[in-house]
């Protein structure tokens, strides 16, 4: 049995192919301005990596913000449901997922079947998401990896009060002018994001004694993981490839959809 999940996010598109309920291949690329083309390309790349032809795939589920613009998908399911399914597939004991993507962040509380109990998601404003870190890194004249590596420990505590990308940029410029160390600014940025996400997480009434998983591109940022762990007072599991978890969930959903 071969199925696929395609997650078209605001920044990146991901495709996952499962063969006999096991991860067979995956691909990732920038979404760009043509959602349908991005989905087609990333799907083809995943097929090529797995040496498969499109006709081998028995069911395709699309997800992510571009999910309804993928004409070759059999069904679309929200990224909230798919994310929970993907995490449950990898970590059956997980009960809370925090997903921080390019332009959204969400907290999902789920049951022992991977079903969503409750969820919270940011609104129109992309405050506290990957885009926020991207702009902040640019302002500090460094890449995202560098930002994550220097933002672990502050020599001097400074405060970035806003998670609004524009306001935070103003604050960073002001801190640079005050000759504050980049590492201290990076810590402040990560603390600011963690505070924003903490509110979102708390609105789902989570149980931090259960396993907590962080997914999405921002999960690659070790400083965010550590800052969140400190804030939540619990250990956070980061999958090997946190960006494809939602696409994985879509593929898992395709299996159950196939059996209907």
């Amino acid at each position, binding site marked *: 049995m071969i199925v696929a999940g395609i997650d078209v996010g605001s920044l990146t598109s991901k495709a996952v192919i499962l063969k006999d309920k096991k991860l067979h291949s995956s691909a990732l690329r920038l979404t760009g301005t043509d959602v349908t083309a991005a989905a087609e390309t990333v799907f083809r790349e995943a097929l090529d990596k797995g040496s498969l032809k499109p006709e081998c795939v028995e069911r395709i589920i699309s997800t992510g913000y571009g999910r309804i613009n993928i004409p070759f998908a059999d069904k679309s399911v929200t990224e909230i*449901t798919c994310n929970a399914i993907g995490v449950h597939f990898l970590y059956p004991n997980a009960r809370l997922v925090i997903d921080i993507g390019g332009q959204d962040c969400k907290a999902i509380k789920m049951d022992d079947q991977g079903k969503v109990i*409750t969820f919270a998601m940011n*609104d129109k404003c992309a405050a506290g998401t990957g885009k926020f870190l991207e702009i902040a890194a640019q302002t500090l004249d460094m890449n995202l990896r560098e930002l994550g590596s220097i933002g672990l420990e502050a020599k001097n505590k400074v405060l970035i009060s806003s998670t609004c990308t524009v306001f935070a940029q103003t604050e960073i410029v002001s801190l640079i002018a005050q000759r504050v160390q980049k590492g201290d600014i990076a810590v402040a940025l990560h603390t600011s994001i963690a505070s924003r996400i903490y509110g979102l997480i708390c*609105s789902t009434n989570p149980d931090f004694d259960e396993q907590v998983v962080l997914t999405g591109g921002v999960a690659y940022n070790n400083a965010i993981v550590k800052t969140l762990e400190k804030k939540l007072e619990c250990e956070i599991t980061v999958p090997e490839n946190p960006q494809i978890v939602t696409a994985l969930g879509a593929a898992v959903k395709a299996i159950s959809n196939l059996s209907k």
Partner: protein
Amino acid sequence: MKENTEFKIGKRLESQKRLGNLIMEHYRDAHEVKKSKKHPIAWVSSASPNELLWTMDIYVMFPEAYAATCGARHAAHGHCEVSENNNYEHHLCTYCRNSTGSSIASIQGGEVFDPLPSPDFLLCASNSCLLITKWFEHLSHYWKVPLINIDSPLIDPAMDEKEIVEHVKRQCIDLIDFLEEFTGKKFDYDRLQEVVANGQKSAEGYGQILDVNTHDPIPVTYFDIMAHNFPNLVLRYKPEAAEHFKLMKEELDQRIADKIVPMENMKYRIYWDGVPYWFAMRSLSEKLKELGMGLVTSAYSEVFRFNRLDSNRPLDSVAENIALLYLNRTAGYKAEYTKKLFEKYNMDAGIFAYAMTCKPFSITMYYIADYLQKELGINITEISGDLVDETFFDQETTNTKLEALAEVLDSRNQ
């Protein structure tokens, strides 16, 4: 939910057409009144002691209702822009920005969507919103007309409700003095009794309309009902309001008898919390229908019940109507009240619609949502947008949240 297989899908309600006519006549008459100078015109906040004004034949206009209309017609943006050009900031209440902007534009001869006739005086009460007094103060400044403000404190459990009602009643008596002086006419208490009697019948009729959706399946969605607060808010002093609700009730009862429903495959009974996003109601209605979710009722309508009116105690009941308003209650009261609504209407889930610029209404929302989830174990989703400012709203993000809620409900039923 009952299966819809034996049911027929209803067309547009006759009552919607009649409502459209009532609204049109109200605004047309207002302009005629202004032109003829037959009666003074007052702009008021929605829960002011308006019975006293109607008794004195003052024509009453509601900037909040006007803002909702501008929002629904996608016309509020221009007015808000005028406000912002005059240094009112973007996060200020958009009802306020709409009326301030349209007022400034009217006074300066600028472009205004269906402008309200200018006011001769203003009346507001602090029961519905913390900002409203300052908002009306600005309107008073721009129009150069008097403002009367009724202080109506929050109904805190530690306070004596009777004292609060007395406090409001004393101000109503002061308002009567003002009206007598302003109009040069003696206040007619027999006429007040008549106005209150009309309002009482209207409020009873409005309540019956809201109760209709306790039926399963619902004969109409809340989208079809929400705008019918207009007659009970604006026209309740006239017999036409009660007549409208009587005819509407008959129409809805007939729908139930004829097994007419508003949508196909309705799976879930959904509650709406918050002021409607007037500009997005059509798109939200279509989305919810697509997902099999029928909007049933909302505590928003409680604001417009005005069900304390009693023609046997005209002035006292007018004061009670103002002082004991739902909006003027604590978060705990609202949470318990909403819980009762969930039980009464047998709700499956709730949509909590945060309005970015309406903090007084939205601030209790998270508390209520959390309370309901813990007490009833129901599913909810929180969306964000605004009353009339479309810039705060994102349809796609909202669609994702609504679809996810539908998926959660579907998975619970599997």
